[in-house]
């Protein structure tokens, strides 16, 4: 070798500084967002105080929190119902979205023929067609899910379709050469390739499923299962219980963030081994 050898690993100021910065960043990653959240809440509070905004217009965060605690019994039950619908809606959105995307990828004709219908479903105001749905669909539960599905499925369909088409062309050729049939190609090449896109769609659809659940409850009612958050918000609005309305809204917001964090985590776990977007770089 050309250079003399030291006797052990070298450490110096530069290295230490780098290590320290990394440690700080590690902590800041969680502190900063929390600080900003706190700041936002503080600003909300100040906004109300400075502008003398009455609690029936915009309640202070403290009041919302105490209302949340006070009404936790009612609100948590409604939350549970909304969560239930959201979960099911997301599940059907995933199944329906991926299913359609697979169908589209199997046949260009299917895509050309049915994607207009998918778009129509996406853009049609659900409030207007919900009554029609409920005339012909007996089961309230199915109708409810249908409504939520209509709201949430499209991003999954669009992103998965794009992903299925984005499979590497060399790998496509490999599949051709090994005479993979349509399903093998799908299973071993296109679905894994579409995973990052699908998971991107899932992040969008998670929030939409929640919206879908709220909208579905609004247009369809929850029937026998009790009242969800949509009902609580409307009710609080009618009764001018604005702090309670905000408490319910906060529950929805928190649910949305939790769903987003969960889908992000799933996405990270599924991709961190191989996809550029999730790889940790040295």
């Amino acid at each position: 070798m050309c250079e003399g050898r030291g006797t052990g690993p070298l450490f110096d100021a530069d290295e230490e500084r780098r290590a320290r910065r990394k440690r700080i960043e590690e902590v800041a990653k969680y502190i900063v967002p929390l600080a900003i959240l706190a700041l936002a809440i503080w600003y909300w509070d100040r906004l109300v105080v400075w502008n003398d905004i009455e609690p029936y217009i915009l309640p202070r965060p403290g009041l919302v929190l105490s209302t949340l605690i006070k009404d936790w019994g009612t609100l948590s039950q409604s939350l549970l119902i909304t969560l239930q619908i959201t979960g099911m809606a997301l599940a059907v959105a995933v199944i329906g979205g991926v299913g359609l995307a697979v169908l589209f990828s199997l046949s260009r004709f299917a895509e050309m023929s049915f994607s207009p219908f998918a778009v129509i479903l996406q853009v049609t105001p659900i409030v207007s067609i919900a009554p029609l749905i409920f005339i012909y669909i007996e089961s309230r539960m199915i109708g409810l899910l249908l409504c939520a599905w209509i709201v949430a499925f499209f991003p999954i369909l669009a992103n998965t379709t794009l992903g299925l088409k984005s499979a590497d062309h060399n790998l496509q050729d490999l599949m051709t050469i090994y005479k993979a049939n349509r399903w093998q190609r799908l299973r071993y090449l296109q679905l894994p390739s579409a995973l990052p896109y699908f998971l991107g769609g899932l992040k969008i659809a998670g929030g939409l499923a929640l919206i879908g659940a709220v909208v579905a409850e609004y247009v369809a009612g929850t029937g026998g299962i009790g009242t969800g958050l949509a009902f609580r918000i409307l009710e609080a609005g009618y009764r001018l219980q604005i702090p309670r309305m905000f408490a319910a809204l906060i529950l929805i917001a928190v649910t949305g963030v939790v769903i987003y964090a969960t889908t992000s985590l799933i996405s990270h776990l599924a991709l961190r081994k191989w996809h550029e977007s999730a790889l940790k770089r040295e």
Partner: protein
Amino acid sequence: QDLTPVTFGTNWVAQAEHGGFYQSVADGTYAACGLDVSILPGGPQVNNQAMMLAGRIDFYMGGHLDAYFAVQEGLPIVNVMASFQKDPQVLMTHPGKVSSFDQMTDLTMIVQDAVAYYEWMKAAYGFNDAQRQPYTFNSAPFLVNKDSAQQGYLSSEPYAIEKETGWAPDVWLIADAGYSGYSTTIQTKLDVVEQQPEVVKCFVEGSILGWYNYIYGDNSAANDLILADNPDMTQDKIDFAIKAMLEHGIVDSGDTLELGIGAMTEERSKQFYDTMVEAGVLPEGVDYAKAYDLTFINKGLGMDLRPE
């Protein structure tokens, strides 16, 4: 003479039920006592009440119960006049399906989410939540299901259904069934009453006169304004609504025959409050009297305009 500009937010798109107010805008009754009133139509989801609470508009077309809710929540809202003695909210059934209000308890009730009168119906008549399905302002589910009843507004849904299907549904006013709240009130904030009583007085009195003129006099100018504010309104529909209001004594019946249009009374307010407590809509101990101010009404103003 400088006119004081005030804005009155209604609860819906312009319609005959707002006629009294348009009447006084059209014929200058408000201007005569110094107000330049602009009417801000509401609509689905337009929340003019919040606009009033935020001080963006001066008066709001409110209701009886929401003023009680306001008191319960400590909101500085007060009703200063009630245009309607009876709530024009109805339930409709297929012709001949039931012969009285209480027979509807076996039907599927197509009623909006979270409305208070349904709570009252539950308490007073034994309806339940399981039989309710939300009304999303489309009558199709009602039309295809003979075993259902649907909410409606006296002059809207019954008219539309009759016009489009050729048959008239049976109409059940909840007011006639015992729901005794006033409706289409003039609502404002307490500080307006305290600081500008002359404005409130002018607006209330102008409105009282407006209603007399509208339902009993020449209302064509007001209707023109309504038609202009709501291009989808038709004369036909206005005529139907006015007829219905007269027929059911919505504006002028009961107390108004002595106190004049706009009347509200202590007894009826208490009685309505008690009903709501019984129905579990309101708790006991609300100082409901804060919800109304009788200073500007019950003076028999305009009674001479009523034809014999």
